[in-house]
C-alpha cells in the first residue's frame, strides 16, 4: 500500500509550493478550453491559437509562482491559483465580447493582468516587513480619503452614469476607489489593533446599550465617516456598502462585542433611510430594484436585461459566445449593457448556466475561506485584522455586484473582482493578494518553526 506524503495535512514548506504549481495547470487548461470554445464559435475553426494563449498565460503564472517560491516560500498555496482562475474566466469572457463590441478589451485586460503581477512583485519586495504600514497609518488614511475625493476635482474627474468614479490623467483613466479601499482597510486594521482594548474596557452601558467610549472611537468615526461621506459625495453606493461591511467585520473581530455591530447596523438603517429620502440618485436605484418594470426601456433596462440573460442560460448555459449581447443591426451594447464590467456575471450565467455561476461564487467562497484561515493563523493583532479586512472587502465586493445583477440588492456599479474589465480593479486586487500572501507567509513560517518569532519593536 502506497503512502502519500503529507497530502495536505501538514504545513510543509515544499509541498505548499508544489501544490500551488499543480493548481496552476488546471487554471491554464481552463483558459485554453475557454478560448478554444470562443474560437470554435466565432471563426468555426479550432486552430492552435487557443493553445498558445493558454501557454502564455501559464508562462506568466509560472514566473509569478517562481517569484513566490523565492520570496514567500511559506505562503498560502491556493490563493494565487484561485485569483488566477478568476482572471482567466474574465479574460475568456472579455475576449468573447471583443468580436461583438468590435473592441480590443481582452488584450488590454491581459496587459493589466501582467502589470498587476509586476505590481504584486513590487509590493512583496517593498513591504517585506509589512508592519511599516502601521507606522504610516494616518498618512495612508489621508491618501485613501484623497483618492476618494480626486474624481470630484474639476480638472481630474469624469462622470460616468451619474457617479463620479474615474480620474483621467492624459490618456490613462483610473478608478481611485479601488485603491482607496485598501488604504481604508489598512488604517482600520492598524487603528483597531492599538485601541481595541480601550474600546472594550472603556465601554459604558447607557439605557441598556453598551456604547464604545467616544474618546477612542472618535478618530475611527472621523476617518470612516469621511470616507462614507466621500462615497455619497461621489455617488458610489456599491463601494460605500463594501466599506461599511469591512468596518463592521473589523470592529467585531477586534472587540468581539455584538452590541457594537447591532449599533452599527442600526446606524446603517437610519443613514440609509435618510440618504434614500434626500438623495434622488439613491432613491432611483432603490425604486428600480423594487420594481424594474416601471420603466423597462429606461432606468430598469439594465437590471431587466441582466435577469433575462441569466434566465436564458438555464441550468447549463448556452455555451461560450452563444448568448446574445448585441442586438443584430444596432450599434453598441444593445441587449446586455455593460456586459464587460458590471454585468459580466450575467454573461457568465447566460453562457455557462447556473452551474457556471455557482462555480464562480464557489471561487469567491474559497478565496474568502483561505483569507479567513490566514487571519486565524496570524500571530499578531495587526496581521489578523489586516487579513480579515482585506478578505471581507474582496468577498463583499463580489457579493455587492453579484447581488446587484441577480436583484438581491439594488444594482450598483462595482467591478466583479478580477473578472470584470478594468485596469485599476486588477491592479488593486493584486496588491490585495500581495498583502494577504505576506501575512500568510509570516504566519505559516512561524507555525512551522513552532511558536511566534520574537516580536520586532514596532508591534507593541
Amino acid at each position, binding site marked *: 500500500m502506497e503512502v502519500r*506524503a503529507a497530502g495536505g*495535512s501538514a504545513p510543509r514548506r515544499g509541498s505548499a509550493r508544489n501544490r500551488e504549481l499543480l493548481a496552476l495547470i*488546471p487554471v491554464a487548461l481552463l483558459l485554453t478550453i475557454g478560448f478554444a470554445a470562443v474560437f470554435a464559435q466565432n471563426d*468555426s475553426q479550432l486552430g492552435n491559437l487557443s493553445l498558445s494563449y493558454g501557454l502564455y498565460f501559464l508562462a506568466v503564472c509560472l514566473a509569478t509562482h517562481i517569484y513566490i517560491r523565492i520570496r514567500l516560500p511559506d505562503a498560502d498555496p*491556493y490563493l494565487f491559483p484561485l485569483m488566477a482562475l478568476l482572471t482567466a474566466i474574465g479574460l475568456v469572457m472579455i475576449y468573447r465580447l471583443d468580436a461583438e463590441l468590435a473592441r480590443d478589451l481582452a488584450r488590454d485586460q491581459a496587459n493589466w493582468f501582467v502589470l498587476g503581477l509586476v505590481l504584486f512583485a513590487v509590493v512583496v519586495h517593498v513591504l517585506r516587513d509589512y508592519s511599516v504600514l502601521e507606522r504610516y497609518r494616518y498618512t495612508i488614511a489621508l491618501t485613501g480619503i484623497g483618492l476618494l475625493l480626486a474624481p470630484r476635482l474639476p480638472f481630474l474627474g469624469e462622470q460616468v452614469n451619474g457617479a463620479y468614479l474615474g480620474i483621467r490623467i492624459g490618456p490613462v483613466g483610473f478608478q481611485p476607489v479601488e485603491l482607496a479601499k485598501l488604504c481604508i482597510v489598512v488604517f482600520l486594521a492598524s487603528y483597531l489593533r492599538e485601541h481595541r482594548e480601550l474600546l472594550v474596557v472603556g465601554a459604558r452601558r447607557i439605557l441598556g446599550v453598551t456604547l464604545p467610549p467616544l474618546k477612542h472611537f472618535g478618530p475611527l468615526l472621523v476617518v470612516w465617516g469621511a470616507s462614507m461621506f466621500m462615497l455619497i459625495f461621489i455617488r458610489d453606493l456599491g463601494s460605500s456598502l463594501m466599506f461599511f461591511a469591512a468596518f463592521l467585520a473589523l470592529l467585531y*473581530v477586534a472587540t468581539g462585542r455584538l452590541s457594537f455591530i447591532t449599533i452599527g447596523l442600526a446606524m446603517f438603517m437610519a443613514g440609509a433611510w435618510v440618504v434614500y429620502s434626500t438623495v434622488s440618485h439613491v432613491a432611483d436605484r432603490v425604486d428600480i430594484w423594487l420594481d424594474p418594470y416601471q420603466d423597462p426601456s429606461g432606468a430598469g433596462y439594465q437590471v431587466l436585461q441582466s435577469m433575462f440573460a441569466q434566465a436564458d442560460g438555464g441550468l447549463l448555459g448556452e455555451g461560450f459566445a452563444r448568448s446574445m449581447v448585441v442586438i443584430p443591426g444596432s450599434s453598441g451594447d444593445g441587449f446586455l449593457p455593460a456586459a464587460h464590467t458590471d454585468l459580466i456575471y450575467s454573461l457568465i450565467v447566460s453562457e*455557462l448556466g447556473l452551474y457556471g455561476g455557482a*462555480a464562480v461564487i464557489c471561487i469567491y467562497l474559497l478565496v474568502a475561506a483561505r483569507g479567513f484561515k490566514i487571519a*486565524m493563523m496570524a500571530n499578531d493583532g495587526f496581521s489578523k485584522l489586516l487579513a480579515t479586512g482585506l478578505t471581507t472587502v474582496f468577498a463583499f465586493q463580489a457579493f455587492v455586484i453579484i447581488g446587484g445583477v441577480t436583484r438581491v440588492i439594488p444594482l450598483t456599479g462595482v467591478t466583479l473582482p478580477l473578472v470584470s474589465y478594468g485596469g485599476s480593479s486588477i491592479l488593486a486586487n493584486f496588491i490585495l493578494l500581495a498583502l494577504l500572501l505576506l501575512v500568510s507567509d509570516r504566519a505559516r513560517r512561524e507555525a512551522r518553526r*513552532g511558536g511566534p518569532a520574537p516580536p520586532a519593536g514596532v508591534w507593541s
Partner: protein
Amino acid sequence: MDFEPLSLALKFAFLGVLYLFLLWIARSARKDLKVNSGVAAGPETGFGGGGATRDGWLVVEASDNLDPGSRYDLFGGVTLGRSDDADIAFSDRYASGLHARVYARAGRYYVEDMNSTNGTLLNGAPVLGETEIPDGSTISIGDTSFRFQLDD
C-alpha cells in the same frame, strides 16, 4: 459547417475541469482545518478566549513526513494512521491504516488502539483498551511519536 457539438463538448469540458479543480481545493481546505497553526488564544489574538473546557493538542515529536512541532487540534476526536482517511495521516512502516484514535470524554482525553498490527505505546507502555492520557504524555506509533498537551 456545424460546430455546435464541438462547442457543447468544450462547454462541458470547461465546467467539468472547473468543478474538479474546486473540489480538489475544497478538499485540501477541509483537511487543513484539522491542523492548527499552534497559536493559543492570547490577549493579542482578537478572537475572544476559549470556553471552559481545556483544549487538547497532539504535537508531532518525531515523524518521517510530518514536521516536528506541528500541532493537531483534538476537537471532536481524531484518528491516527497511515491511510488517507485518518485525520492525522503520516507515513510509517509500522503503522496500520487506521491505527489509533484519541478523543475527549467528560473533560478527559483517552487513547485507544484500533486493533493495529504493531500496537500503540503511551509513555512506553502498550495501550490496552481505552487509556486516559495525562498532560505531557507521549504517544508512539512505530517510529512516529506525538506529545499530548493541554491548553492552559
